[in-house]
């Protein structure tokens, strides 16, 4: 790397160019990374710092002075806010559990199928549907299962107690993007199950159930758990779908934040919105802290 190691009359032009580029690389190789880091510091860093700071401050309405406190966080863990937080966790946990099981079943059905085209079709469709959240999804379900939806009308579902604008209604909607997400996550792991393992288990007299309980599920466990927290995280963060469907009739933390932020409920609740957001960041951080190591672990079986 030292400059003097390159003789003045280099044997070839290519050698000189390489040496020169090596030298330049050492000096300014990190320069192209600077704009990226600077941009993230401004566009992402400042709002996050503002979020942290705001979550821990209160403003005295009389004097206008601000002081540091944990009162906002405290408030965000009590009363209606706590109900919303628990509501979100419950909904996400239930959705993720159902999504994990259904996704596993669907992926297994596709992976073991003899039809190559079916597999390709399901995986492509999953790629599209896993990205199909938000507003259009909400309206598709309103048209299907809403109060004047096609299925609701034709099957008289309302008389049977169906309500899209409820906990279970929202679950049915969320599964529409969670199941494809699980299929995408779990398919590589299912592909990693060697057929020799199944044959070995069968040769030793294991039943189908025993093979799954003692061989397949333990191998799949990291991927399944990783998939579960991924689904949990994306159900937990979902706002557009819930807002377009239920407004604020179900207590969800994202809906509460939006309400508190726009001052719909009480003026001066912005700081509680910040504290609630911080709660969400902590939950999402926990999810990622579980997910990333698991993903790395499950990758070992696929090698």
């Amino acid at each position, binding site marked *: 790397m030292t400059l003097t190691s390159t003789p003045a009359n280099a044997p070839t*032009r290519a050698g000189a*160019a*390489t040496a020169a*580029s090596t030298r330049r*690389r050492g000096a300014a*190789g*990190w*320069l*192209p*990374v600077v*704009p*990226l*880091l600077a*941009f993230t510091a*401004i*566009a992402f860093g*400042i*709002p*996050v710092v*503002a*979020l942290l700071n*705001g979550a821990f401050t209160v403003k005295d309405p009389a004097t206008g002075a601000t002081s540091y406190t944990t009162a906002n966080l405290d408030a965000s863990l009590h009363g209606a806010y706590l109900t919303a937080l628990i509501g979100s966790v419950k909904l996400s946990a239930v959705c993720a559990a159902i999504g994990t099981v*259904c996704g596993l079943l*669907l992926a*297994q*059905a*596709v992976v073991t*199928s003899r039809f190559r085209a079916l597999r390709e079709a399901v995986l492509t469709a999953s*790629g599209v*549907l896993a*990205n*199909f959240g*938000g*507003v*259009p999804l909400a*309206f*598709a379900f309103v*048209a*299907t299962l809403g109060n*004047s*939806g*096609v*299925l609701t009308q034709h099957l008289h579902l309302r008389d049977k107690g169906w309500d899209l604008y409820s906990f279970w209604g929202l679950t049915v909607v969320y599964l*529409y993007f969670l*199941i494809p997400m699980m299929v995408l996550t779990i398919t590589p792991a299912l592909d990693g199950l060697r057929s020799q393992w199944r044959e070995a288990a*069968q040769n030793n007299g294991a039943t189908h159930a025993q093979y799954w309980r003692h061989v397949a599920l333990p191998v799949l466990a990291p991927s399944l758990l990783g998939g579960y927290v991924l689904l949990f995280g994306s159900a937990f*963060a979902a*706002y557009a779908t819930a*807002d*377009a469907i239920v407004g604020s009739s179900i207590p969800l933390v*994202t809906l509460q*934040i939006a309400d508190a*932020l726009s001052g719909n409920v009480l003026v001066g609740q*912005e700081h509680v*919105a*910040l504290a609630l*957001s911080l709660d*969400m*960041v902590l939950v*999402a951080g926990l999810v990622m802290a579980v997910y990333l190591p698991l993903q790395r672990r499950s990758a070992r079986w696929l090698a």
Partner: protein
Amino acid sequence: MARLTHRIRPGRGTVLVAAALYFLVPLASSVIFTVDVPGQGINFDAYTRIFSTDGFLSSLGLSLELAAATIVIDLLLMVPAMVALRLGAPRLRPVVEVVCSLPLVVPPIAFVVGVSTVLKWGPEYLSRTPFFQTLVAIQNPTFPFVLVMAYVVMALPFVYRALDAGLRAVDVRTLVEAARSCGASWPVALVRAVLPNMRGALLNASFLTLALVLGEFTVAQLLGYRPFAVWIVNISGAQAQMSVAVSVLSLLMTWLLLLVLATAAGRRPSRTAP
């Protein structure tokens, strides 16, 4: 053996049929909902009226402009950085990886709460500084640059993964050194040797970003702007049928985009990875 395979088959059929029903019925119902008007029979009014409805073109146009700006900025920031990580600064790699994954830890709604806090502080603390003018400029309602900044951040994880996958298939060092030995300058080496070799990854990143921006609702709504997704929700109260019709169209558009993406870039990993 025979008993095992027998026991699986009906189960697999049930699973596939149930999945097909669950995923196709809402799509079919949406189409029926939009064309089957109660008391009028079947007509396609909901679709033909879309284009003449107030706000459709302007909101879609705004979304497309935002998407274009987001894609350009994301690629301008990320491509040189990612190439540099491979060539000269491998030690920065974990840093960039963490920075690009951080937006996953902050849900969009928490992020927008932070952004709106900063925007509210502006008038209070910066009113006498030149920063204030910047703050006003990025909130220009005809082209809210603040949304672009937020979208660039939100797209970072996807862009990072797409570009990383693309670069893994290319020997950047050899390409650049070959180009440099032939007398190309750094920018020329990047544009004419490296970029053409990662067309799939660039397309992939652009499409994912486009899909993200077109469907984005949370940030835009809470900051009070009105791109496409916000517009659909706004009209849904008065014109339920049309909002579903627009949803169907936008779903078809996303399908088309992502299918193009799947065929353009999806084939490659299956060939390189065993």
